[in-house]
């Protein structure tokens, strides 16, 4: 059945100073289909999206909406024509109510004053299909990330779009919220509205999408029906080379405990958390978003306060007054949000890498420039970071390379134990794989690794042993063959209260 084509992109070219981002890309989205777009960072996904939604103008090529050629001068044009956009970084005004966000720019008025009654009623109607507890008067800042996303979707749909573009929609959602989102997307599909779904998570794509288009280096490689392909072949097409196994080989060694954590407790955050980290193994901390993993780990490193708990490293009991003393003892923490508190975005790559090392590397309080550049080059090679000049500012790098710089920052102090919080968040498959391999290498060289991740495939693929937390408590510890998605999920759900 050849369904009607809602959006057709024909031979689109787009260049920026120094790069040709899109080289003659063509794409067809059918009416009522969920079409996914994948590619590594830098493949051209964002550029293509921006051309379709009117943010950028293509240099060459044409775009057709419902068979008619269109030319969008700005995002407003695209919106009016019926293309809705749900951004990765949500585009809502936090201090303003839900209703005022949904109807921004078209608030119903009576005699020049905003008709609030009508506004709230209209908003209720728009929110109804989502069966959500969101009230139209609520301030957006009071909502959870998932709820905010619902508002943004509702806003897009209320504009009567024929195509909704989702950009990395589950990056800030937990499992159940993601499932709720998928239900909404399926509802959208049932209304014969098309969806363009951009994501790095192949498992999701295979769960809800109909077709998939792969971009690489600005060229469309192929379009497949989901039912006729596998994630391995997709990855190969994305990366252009056979990645082999998605995850590196695990280790069966069990060495001496290098980190021993006992009875960590903090009221309302976590209680009685105890575990070991043994030499030669990668320990995973799994659980839902909000289960307290980050809080525990930050407390262990002396960053956040705690009420009870003891830490010993290689048998020696450590007193943790502040993060500085943790670093002195070779224990360090890599944050989950590199933009928020992991990197100094406006500073150079070199300066970021030496941030923790600063005092040790300085001679008589002067920062030795040559030495720092040599250090940066060492890590560039080791982690395969792609940059033109070590003096480049970090915010000019892609997400994957930024993550690698953050990792270099920690490696630079030659730590004994690294705790990584969501180490591959927001980076593409190729870079992810590199980091996983690197983690295994580090572990094999004697450095203790703890990984916190909300991506079950990652936990299962990378970790030798997994501690599962739920609502601040440890619910299970899984080793070897027991490290599977099913066992992790069941240990969480068997202790679920509601």
């Amino acid at each position, binding site marked *: 059945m050849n369904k009607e084509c809602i959006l057709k992109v024909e031979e689109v070219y787009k260049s920026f100073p120094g790069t040709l981002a899109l080289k003659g890309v063509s794409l067809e989205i059918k009416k009522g289909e969920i079409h996914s777009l994948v590619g590594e960072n830098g493949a051209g996904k964002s550029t293509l999206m921006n051309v379709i939604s009117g943010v950028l103008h293509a240099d060459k090529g044409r775009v057709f909406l419902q068979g008619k050629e269109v030319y969008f001068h700005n995002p407003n044009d695209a919106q009016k024509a019926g293309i809705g956009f749900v951004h990765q970084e949500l585009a809502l005004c936090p201090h303003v109510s839900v209703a005022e966000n949904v109807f921004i720019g078209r608030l119903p008025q009576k005699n020049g004053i905003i008709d609030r009654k009508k506004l709230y009623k209209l908003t209720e109607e728009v929110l109804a299909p989502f069966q959500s507890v969101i009230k139209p008067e609520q301030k957006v800042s009071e909502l959870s990330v998932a709820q905010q996303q619902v508002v943004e979707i509702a806003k897009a749909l209320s504009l009567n779009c024929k195509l909704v573009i989702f950009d990395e929609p589950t990056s800030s959602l937990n499992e159940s919220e993601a499932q709720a989102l998928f239900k909404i997307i399926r509802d959208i599909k049932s209304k014969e509205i098309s969806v363009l779904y951009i994501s790095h998570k192949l498992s999701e794509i295979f769960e809800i999408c109909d077709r998939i288009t792969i971009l690489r280096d600005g060229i469309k490689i192929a379009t497949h029906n989901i039912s006729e392909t596998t994630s391995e072949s997709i990855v190969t097409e994305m990366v252009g080379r056979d990645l082999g196994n998605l995850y590196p080989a695990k280790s069966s060694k069990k060495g001496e405990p290098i980190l021993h954590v006992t009875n960590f407790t903090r009221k309302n955050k976590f209680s009685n958390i105890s575990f070991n980290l043994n030499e030669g193994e990668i320990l995973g901390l799994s659980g839902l978003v909000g289960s307290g993993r980050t809080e525990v780990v930050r407390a262990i490193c002396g960053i956040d306060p705690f009420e009870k708990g003891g830490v010993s490293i290689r048998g020696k009991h450590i007193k943790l007054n502040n993060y500085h003393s943790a670093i002195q003892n070779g224990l360090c923490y890599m944050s989950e949000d590199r933009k928020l508190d992991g*990197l100094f975005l406006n*500073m150079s790559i070199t*300066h970021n890498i030496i941030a923790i090392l600063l005092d040790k590397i300085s001679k008589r309080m002067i920062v030795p420039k040559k030495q720092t550049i040599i250090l940066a080059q060492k890590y560039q090679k080791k982690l395969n970071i792609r940059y033109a000049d070590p003096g480049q500012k970090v915010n000019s790098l892609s997400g994957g390379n930024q993550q690698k710089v953050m990792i270099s920052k920690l490696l630079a102090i030659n730590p004994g134990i690294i705790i990584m919080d969501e180490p591959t968040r927001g980076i593409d498959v190729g870079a992810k794989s590199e980091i996983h391999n690197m983690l295994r290498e580090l572990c094999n060289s004697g450095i203790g690794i703890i990984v916190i991740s909300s991506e079950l495939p990652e936990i299962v693929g990378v970790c030798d042993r997994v501690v599962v937390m739920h609502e601040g408590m440890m619910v299970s510890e899984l080793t070897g063959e027991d490290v599977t998605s099913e066992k992790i999920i069941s240990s969480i759900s068997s202790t679920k209260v509601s």
Partner: protein
Amino acid sequence: MKSSQGSIKRVIHGIRGFKESTVILIIILLCTGISISAPIFLSLDNLKTTAIGLACDGIIGIGMTLSLISGGFDLSVGSVMGLSAVLTALFAGMGINIWLAAFLAVAISLIIGLINGILIGKVGLNPFITTLGMMSIARGGVFVLTQGTSLSINNADQSFRFLGSGNLFGIPVIAIIFIVLAILGDFMVRKSSPAMKVFYVGSNEKAAILSGINTGKVKLYVYLFTALMASLAGILSLSRFGVATANMGSGSEMRVISAAVIGGAALAGGEGSVFGTVLGVLLLSIINNALVLFNVSVHWQNLIAGTILILAVTIDLLSHKRKNK
């Protein structure tokens, strides 16, 4: 093989990448333009006067640069400058040796810097409110101590006056002191590791904490340093005029912050250089000088100076944006 063409390319890349190059260009253009229309601009007298006039703002600027880099700023510098001058004159008037008096005044100013630093760095108060409050308190102290009249240091050791009003090989000593402090300050900000920490704190305080940096301590030292510079400016001013007036230094905080921003410092923190701030001070002084030389009616001065300021900052912003692309 690296040919001469390659090294020329590197020099050009170096200049282009040099943040302050736009401001330097604007200054050169301005000076050229002014010298053509009013040749007296280049007369020794005029140049000396301009140099002396900007020295104190410049010294305060060295300290202010650091507080801007840390993500804050210090509005109390003008008052600290005045207080420092007044205290020195007061102590000297009581018979204390003027050099010792100056030392005591600096010490007291450092206490003000310490209070600023503790409130902002350790307690976590907003720098705007804290230093604004301190600005009032210090200025109030000045009024109380002087009762409105100016304090003279005629009875003190006149060798002290050499600092502010003497000449060395024809160059005003106060300008030499400023240049030396500026060079040292610039070097420190560019190369030293304590200053590097200030950059980290200003760029992303949370990331700085996660890099093991004691952000409270860093901010404390920053405000101590800023107060020190303001205090030195006050002492030099006293040495120059021989009197401490009650409103010495008022208004300097806004001028210095403007100069620093023109020179590339970011109000949000994490960026800035002493050299850039010095250029900013230089630009503002040249503009003021030009207004006098061109006999621009005093009534127009504010309007024109303000417009030129906006133009200069816009030009600088445009060149910044280009670099970040």
